[in-house]
């Protein structure tokens, strides 16, 4: 799973740290006046518990398919120029970049809305799981309750 940042699919998993500069450059277009990006970083706490590090695991084939679907939906819903998302898997330390989303558009409204849509949907639907390691040595898989009742097969639509 080598990560070429100069081209490749609009949604990707990365099993090692990646540079965001070439991703951002891919979104530059003379017709784009607005760029919105989002980054998720590993925090030193979760729900008040000190976190020492974490690991992301994925069902890679399905995650790549579902992630591509999320980007396609964003393209259909918002007046974008381009959009990219990369999500880390493997071991991460506090402060590491876990996910990056970038969107370019003619106007800022579409850029912000699409960026928010992509990260919200990736978090809700793409099969990636977080395994947290706490200060007290305990570890756990995070399987959050869905905000809006679980929808089996939701992502298939």
């Amino acid at each position, binding site marked *: 799973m080598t990560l070429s940042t100069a081209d490749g699919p609009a949604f990707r998993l990365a099993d090692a740290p990646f540079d965001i500069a070439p991703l951002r450059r891919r979104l530059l277009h003379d017709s784009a006046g607005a760029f919105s990006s989002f980054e998720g970083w590993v925090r030193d706490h979760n729900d008040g518990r000190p976190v020492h590090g974490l690991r*992301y695991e994925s069902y890679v084939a399905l995650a790549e398919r579902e992630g591509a679907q999320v980007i396609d939906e964003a393209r259909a819903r918002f007046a974008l120029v381009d959009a990219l998302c990369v999500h880390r898997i493997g071991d991460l330390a506090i402060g590491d970049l876990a*996910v990056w989303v970038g969107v370019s558009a003619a106007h800022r409204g579409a850029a912000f809305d699409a960026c928010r849509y992509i990260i919200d949907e990736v978090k*809700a639907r793409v099969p990636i799981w977080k395994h947290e390691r706490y200060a007290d040595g305990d570890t756990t898989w995070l*399987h959050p309750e*869905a905000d809006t009742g679980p929808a*089996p097969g939701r992502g*298939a639509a």
Partner: protein
Amino acid sequence: MTDVRLLYFASLRDQAGCAEETRQTTAPDLRTLYAEVQALHGFALPVERLRVAVDGAFAHWDDPLRDGSEIAFIPPVSGG
């Protein structure tokens, strides 16, 4: 009898003690198949909190089993 390959992720993998297994089953649909392996491995997550995928695409719990397919039970995700 249907032959299927099962993939387990995250807490399901920890509880099953393996990342995948092959099974011969008489389960008519995916929901029944999950009940079968849930009883076997003691999975804590109820079917209502899972999604299911067949051959790398999301599927529906009432879908019948296809011989030789790869089935993944998807616990609530926590990327981002």
